[in-house]
């Protein structure tokens, strides 16, 4: 089979490529350039591309660099900034998977005559008892990345290979070492690649501050209306946040319950005030088909938080037992057993 491997220059995709070569596939590696100018030094940096190319050389496969900077800007960075402007908490890595890796990249692979696209994600594509392709959790539950792939559809699964999904991270590194891959000891990548890249550690505030106007906001106690003080940038506040909301330290810890950007108000309260019994979802996707209302599922709103039992409703999901509120813009993955069945965006 002809396989195009997305090689980020990290250890996971390096080993994925190596395994495919060993399995006898006709493998080509490609690194997506997503961000940064000519001398960029962060994610998708020259150094990462060089690592990917050197691994490809070592494996004896061709390597290409795809310039997807404009698509990335339009589909990931722009929406990320807009979401923060609205006071939401977006997940750009998932949007990158949605629009870049498994859309633009997959499309290109098909045009170029490849049968499959492969990545170094810790998730598994398996056939269920009925012979239908399903997206399952990675065997290494601590590293499971099915969450960040939950927007995939069955049609896409048919063209994707996840060669290291049944491995543990330590195994991956060991295999990289055994094969003499120079990425064997490379640290895992950071959360938001374009921010680390742009501001060299100074973070989100600077990145967003250069692109949108940030507004100060009052921090107000939910029940009493007491004004605790101000935060410098309401656009950077996330529901559930505890630190950096300038409350009097003598009282019990305060948690952000609500972020109201137009009114410039951050509402805080006790941890218990965060508990909700339902999550509303928008932009819902289904791996195969929409599940009927009332179906019992488990849901998860971050890569490694515990899954919660819930039932599907017209608006989203109703939780079996109350759980903490989740910031709008976050992705919720819907599982049945260990199979991903769909996803949605918290609203």
């Amino acid at each position, binding site marked *: 089979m002809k396989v195009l491997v997305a090689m980020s220059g990290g250890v996971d995709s390096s080993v994925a490529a190596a395994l495919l070569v060993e399995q006898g596939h006709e493998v080509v590696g490609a690194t997506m*350039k997503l961000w940064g100018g000519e001398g960029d030094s962060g994610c998708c940096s020259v150094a990462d*591309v060089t690592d990917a190319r050197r691994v490809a050389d070592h494996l004896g496969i061709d390597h*290409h660099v795809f*310039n997807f900077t404009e698509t990335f800007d339009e589909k990931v960075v722009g929406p990320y900034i807009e979401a923060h402007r609205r006071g939401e908490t977006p997940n750009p890595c998932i949007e990158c998977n949605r629009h870049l890796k498994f859309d633009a990249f997959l499309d290109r692979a098909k*045009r170029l005559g490849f049968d499959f696209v492969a990545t170094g994600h810790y998730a598994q594509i398996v056939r269920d008892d009925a012979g239908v392709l399903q997206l399952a959790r990675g065997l290494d539950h601590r590293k499971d990345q099915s969450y960040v792939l939950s927007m995939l559809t069955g049609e896409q699964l048919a063209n994707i290979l996840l060669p290291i999904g049944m491995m543990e991270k330590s195994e991956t590194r060991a295999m990289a070492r055994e094969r003499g891959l120079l990425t064997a000891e490379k640290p895992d990548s950071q959360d938001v690649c374009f921010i680390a890249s742009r501001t060299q550690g100074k973070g989100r505030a600077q990145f967003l501050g250069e692109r949108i106007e940030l507004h100060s906001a009052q921090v107000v106690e939910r029940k009493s209306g007491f004004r605790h003080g101000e935060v410098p940038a309401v656009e950077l506040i996330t529901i559930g946040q505890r630190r950096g909301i300038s409350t009097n330290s003598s009282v019990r810890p305060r948690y952000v319950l609500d972020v109201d950007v137009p009114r410039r108000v951050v509402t805080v309260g006790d941890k218990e005030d965060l508990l909700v019994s339902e999550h509303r979802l928008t932009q819902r996707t289904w791996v195969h088909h929409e599940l009927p209302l009332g179906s019992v599922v488990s849901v998860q709103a971050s890569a490694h938080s515990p899954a919660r039992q819930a039932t599907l409703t017209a608006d989203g999901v109703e939780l079996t037992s109350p759980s903490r509120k989740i910031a709008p813009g976050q992705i919720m993955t819907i599982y049945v057993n260990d199979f991903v069945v769909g996803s949605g965006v918290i609203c």
Partner: protein
Amino acid sequence: MTSVESAHGAYLDHGASTPILPEVFEAMLVHLRDHYANPSGVHHAGRGERRAIDDARDILGDVLGCSAGEIVFTSGGTEADNLAIFGVAQGLAPGAVIVSAIEHHGVLRPAEALGARIAPVNGQAVIDLRQLELMLDSSVGLVSMMAVNNEVGTVQPIGEVVSLVRSHAPDALVHCDAVQALQWYDLATLLREVDLLTISAHKIGGPKGVGALVVRDRARSRIHPLLLGGSQERDLRAGTENVAGIVGLAVAAQLTKDRQLLNTERIRAIRDRFVDQVLRSVPSARETVARELRHVGNAHLTFPGTVNEEFLMLLDQHGVAASAGSSCASGALEPSHVLLAMGLTPDEARSCIRFTLGASSTSHEIDHAITGVIAAHRQLMGDVVE
């Protein structure tokens, strides 16, 4: 067929680099293998290497139509361009430098770093003389315009540029990047007019890592060195000379000139056949600029609806080496600044492919390339399910 690159396919990227001529390789070999003395050495061995450089300088002066003493050997075209721009601009006001929008980055980046003014081109990538005239006045100190564009191949009206500069900006020096011109044109006429001229060896069958800036005597007092630390090249370029490279450059330039007429007619014929057959087989394709404006080694084609990164990858699979735009540090293709300057949209710019022929190009390669281009285009447009 003379090179490994073209042995199993078609090497149509001569604008990027050319196969070294066998005579050039032979002439260089003794200076790599047998001789190693420093040309500045005050001993027999050093004098031998000095003589090799002097001979090379004489040959190159004859080929180009300048005196040997006006040639400054550099590490290549980019260094020569940098020397011309930064070397003359020292002491000039930022706006006193004017370059065209379609210069090679070797000129464009130094110019941008200096805050130079950028002269526009028309939709055919030819310098807009009327706009240039409006930009010229007595405050201008340096104008840099290339002889032949490296991407779309357009030949520039340097004679007219010089006339405008002399009448409107009498104090300005004129630099001309002739890296892509040397293969196809006699530069003697050009050199009578301009003050500074850049050439490079590896675009004409010479080695990489060597080039030259011709500094006409009238410009000598106006240019300052960028590299200090030795009195080589008449104090304009410090550093022990690349003797083998310099010898290779001179031999390549001589052979290129000797064979220019024959090569030009032969290459024109196979270039035209390539373009005509591709256009016949791919009706949606077109020449990016008019053929009569381009040098004979350039075939620049637009394939609407395609993306050059994908097209080049498929061409590569078919054994056809071509190019598009320029690469950034990571190796990703950037939309060509030349095409954008012509007024193309980024998407249009991304649908263009540059095929460049050279002295070693063969009719057989062209046959191979025609087949490859047609097959790659079919696959990209989804005409063939494999």
